[in-house]
């Protein structure tokens, strides 16, 4: 309470002193339900509404990556999240990668329901070579005396994650600079470029001209990345929002913590509207954990995860495949569970928010090795492509060149994997080429019916068999990278 008072008071004093115009920013917030770490859409709404109700001009720039994944997005493809953003007072949505999870046309459809404009600067619909219908290359918004231009640049890898070459992406400085000139000539006094880390990695950042603020959408602790050029990273299912004070001379950013806020009643109602009847489904208790379990991001993307093991075992049992291999990036719980915790469907859907389905492919031992190699090819960056497994064990050495990192690959009983063909369960995302996986030469052996079930249902069914389940680490994935002194 004291902290809350302090926040309100300090902001009030700050605003009185500086008379600054304010920009609120966040990204990567697809989760519908409040979390233990303080994350809550309703609390977010409280803060935004309070800021907007003050005398100072406030803009809420949303960095996207939020229409999915969550349990509802699988069913309504993000429509509920547009309603939530409407209620949240979003002024502009930078259309990011996950907005495209259900394709370009779905973004167009949702744009009509939004009470805010959507922006995406460097992506064209390959069918028309025009910007995505309903989405604008830039948006000019008044903020006090400023005219704020918002641009959005996604990484070219969207073609491997969600759009599978259906989009044309300009990943060049020249393209951005051209649009900056355009907005400047249209009267923009301040230019915000919302973008991704991957985009900034692949273009020379210092050559970007005329941009005042670069907001990196990232699931991280919000922080200043650099001051010149001015880069700030913000996003994630946490209790943080970024508040930028814009003055004529420049801008300063601070991090707001929302954990202690009161949830906004209207927002709660909106969420209710979507979830009120779902307790009968989501509240279903599945099993009790007889030991602690974690679904932390770092673990899922670089090492054996006790939760990952359960998910993989469930998939392997469902498909009767020799092995199951699913990317760690499809698991999104990022939390610790204590022993005795009772898992519900809500937990499972939170952990596996993409829904997703499984396919069984028949591949050779060589291809299996190649797939595992791909899994660890970007392990240093904790890329989502890292594979959790069942039915086999592998060791990797990240100090070795890409393509030579798997140093051992055995059956789960430590038997040698013979030459020959094996059935492997993978996700629809991987089969379609997501995260640059290539199964175009593999034979799909699973039938259509069995490939219709969502992974969270498969895992829920698996867990329901047991009164108790023991999460274990059993040496499925061993990191043998030498630790340098």
């Amino acid at each position, binding site marked *: 309470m004291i902290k809350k008072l302090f926040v309100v008071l300090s902001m009030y004093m700050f605003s009185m002193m500086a008379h600054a115009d304010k920009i609120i920013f966040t990204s990567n917030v697809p989760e519908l339900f409040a979390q233990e770490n303080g994350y809550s859409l309703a609390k977010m709404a409280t803060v935004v509404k309070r800021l907007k109700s003050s005398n100072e001009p406030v803009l809420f720039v949303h960095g996207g990556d939020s229409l999915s994944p969550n349990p509802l997005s699988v069913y309504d493809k993000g429509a509920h999240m547009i309603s939530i953003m409407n209620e949240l007072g979003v002024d502009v949505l930078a259309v990011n990668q996950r907005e495209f999870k259900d394709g370009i046309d779905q973004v167009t459809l949702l744009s*009509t329901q939004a009470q805010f404009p959507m922006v995406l600067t460097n992506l064209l619909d390959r069918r028309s070579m025009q910007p995505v219908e309903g989405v604008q290359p830039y948006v000019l918004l008044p903020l006090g005396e400023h005219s704020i231009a918002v641009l959005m640049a996604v990484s070219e890898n969207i073609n491997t994650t969600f759009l599978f070459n259906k989009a044309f992406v300009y990943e060049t400085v020249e393209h951005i600079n051209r649009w900056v000139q355009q907005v400047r000539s249209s009267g923009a006094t301040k230019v915000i470029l919302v973008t991704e880390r991957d985009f900034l990695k692949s273009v020379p950042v210092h050559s970007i001209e005329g941009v005042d603020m670069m907001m990196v959408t990232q699931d991280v602790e919000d922080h200043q990345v650099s001051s010149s050029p001015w880069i700030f990273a913000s996003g994630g299912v946490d209790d943080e929002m970024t508040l930028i004070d814009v003055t004529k001379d420049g801008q300063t950013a601070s991090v707001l913590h929302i954990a202690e806020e009161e949830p906004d009643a209207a927002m709660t109602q909106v969420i209710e509207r*979507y979830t009120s*009847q779902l307790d009968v*489904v989501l509240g279903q208790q599945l099993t009790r954990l007889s030991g602690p379990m974690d679904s932390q991001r770092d673990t899922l993307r670089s090492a054996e995860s006790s939760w990952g093991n359960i998910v993989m075992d469930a998939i392997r049992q469902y498909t009767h495949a020799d092995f199951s291999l699913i990317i760690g990036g499809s698991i999104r719980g990022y939390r610790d569970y204590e022993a005795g915790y009772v898992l519900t469907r809500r937990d499972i859907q939170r952990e596996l928010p993409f829904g997703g389905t499984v396919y069984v492919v028949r591949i050779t031992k060589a291809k299996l090795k190649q797939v595992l190699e791909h899994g660890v090819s970007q392990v240093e960056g904790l890329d989502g492509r890292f594979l959790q497994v069942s039915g086999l064990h592998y060791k990797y050495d990240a100090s070795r060149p890409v393509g030579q990192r798997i140093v051992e690959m055995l059956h789960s009983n430590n038997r040698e994997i013979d030459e020959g063909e094996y059935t492997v369960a993978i996700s629809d995302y991987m089969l379609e080429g997501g995260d640059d996986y290539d199964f175009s030469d593999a034979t799909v052996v699973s039938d259509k019916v069995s490939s219709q*079930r969502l992974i969270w249902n498969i895992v829920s069914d698996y867990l329901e068999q047991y009164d108790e389940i023991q999460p274990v680490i059993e040496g499925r994935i061993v990191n043998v990278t030498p630790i340098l002194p």
Partner: protein
Amino acid sequence: MEVEQKASGLKSLRFRIAAAVLFMLLLMLLTSGISFFYFFKLKSAVNQQSQQALPELQVLNSAQLNITRLANLAIEVSNSTSPAYSRILMSQVREQVDELKHSLELLAENNAQIKRLMDVVGKVEPSVTNISLSKSMLDQVDKALNERLFSAMTVTLASFNQANDKEVKQILGEITSDLAQLITRPHLYEQNQITARLVKQMQQLQQQALIHYKPLEPLLLSPRGVLELLSKREIHNSEVVGLTTQNRILLGNIVDFGHRVYMDNEANVAQQAQAISKNSNDFINVLMLVLLVQLMVAAALMVYLHKHLFRRLYALKGLVGQRKKITAHDVAFFDERNELGSLVKQLQTYLETISKQQAQIESTSLQLQSVIKHSHMMAAVIYQDEILYLSEPFYQLFKDRELKSIHDFPDDFQRRIASIQIGDLTTLESAYWDVHRQSWFQVSKDNILWEGKKAYLISLTDVSSQVRAEQEFRKTLSVVESESKLDALTGLYNRKLFEDQVASLKQTTEFMSFAVLLFDVDFFKQYNDKLGHLQGDQVLKMVASVIKRNTPSKGMAIRYGGEELLVFLPKANSSEALEIAQDIVEEVYQQHVPHPSSPHQYLSVSCGVSVQESSSDSLLKVFDQADKCLYQAKKSGRNRVTLWQDGNLGDSL
């Protein structure tokens, strides 16, 4: 009988083979039993599938169909613009939910999953109802909003026309434009921007022209105004979207649940089918095992039969065919306790008897040998052409020869031996004539066991006296026989002899050049009639004696018929024949036997002569020619000779 008894019991072949066959029969029964058992098991499993599992799948199938229809109806409800249509759809939703519940109730027994599924299904109807309600609210708001917008635009336009102030006119113009844009702009944020502008414009209007503001204010800003309705529309809209999403999740869960239950049931059915298949496999395995055992038993039976029956039968064949002697060891091999053994035992007894008899025969033959050797029998023992033994008298018979083999005998003797069958002897006619001794020997041939060899014995018996007696007898017989060829009255050969002669002549192809002289007593009938048969016979005797007297020794005089007499002259020419005929005719007449009926006064004969001129002429032909000549002679006056010459009747002489 003793042997038969020994073969009974467990060791009996009959018993053992019967036992093996019985065992195989039992195995077959077992196989059939197992087959029936498994068939019944399969039948019940298949029955269960068809009567329980498959109908369950059918119900689930129809449930899936209900769920799909329900999902479609929910979408239609959220898109419906007519309240009546919404009501129709809702009644269909209820119908589908009821059907679905009914289907699930059929399956709910003891199935926790389905009970939970029913809970979820229970939520669907209220959910769809809520959608329908929200949708109708949205529709009402939409309708009201359109009416208000239209009124507001009408009022604004009227005010615009009335207003004189330029600034006021501009505000009213902007309001008109914004109201029009409210309808056309697709994006909500644009509408928001417009509404924000409208609020500002209204504020300006309020300050500058209250008169125009007043009629517009309730249409735009009041609780039932355009702005309020716009936000209400948005609320209802998002309500519909939210409820639709929820409903979709519920239905999605139901679909997944149904799918899962269906898959479980399907897996169940598949499992049952697998169990059936496994049962069948077990069945096949057991059957194979039993068959294998059967085969093994059959093989064992074969081996047993081979060892105890076929091998022994073969050995028995050997025993009987070659050995001719059965030892105690052999008997032991055949195992006296079974049928074969007893048979062998019997055989042993027989063979022993036979060998005893053989020994007896051998001693007898030895005795015979000594008898032969010590007797004066003319005997030789021959074995495969080699002469094993010669008795002294036999040796004496051929002492001028060195006799070692049968080929050293004189040829005719060899032939004689060869012609005789074993156990036979030559007839007296074919008896062997020994020139040196001037004696006849009868030859006999017999089997003899000589020094262990199967030889044959040739023995000779002097039958000279019998042969001579035989010859004597034959001589006597010849006389008798020749008499039978003579005519009793005349002493000439009779006609039969002539015919025999004719027959023998026919066979010889050698050219003989013979002559036939045919005589006939002239007017013999009249003579007989006048002087009686006895006188006739006397006359015939007289004529015959003349003929006989004149017939040379090489010729043959024959009484051919009653008074017809014939002379056959072999190797004769016509002159010789003619001469003889002439002599006979003349001599008969010169006897001067009175004949009362003859023009010649005395008894006379006529004669036809014919001589064979070429080899092709048969006796018959020649005879016939002679006959024709005789006829000619008679015609020519009798007591004369007519000769056949060059194919014609010759002149009578």
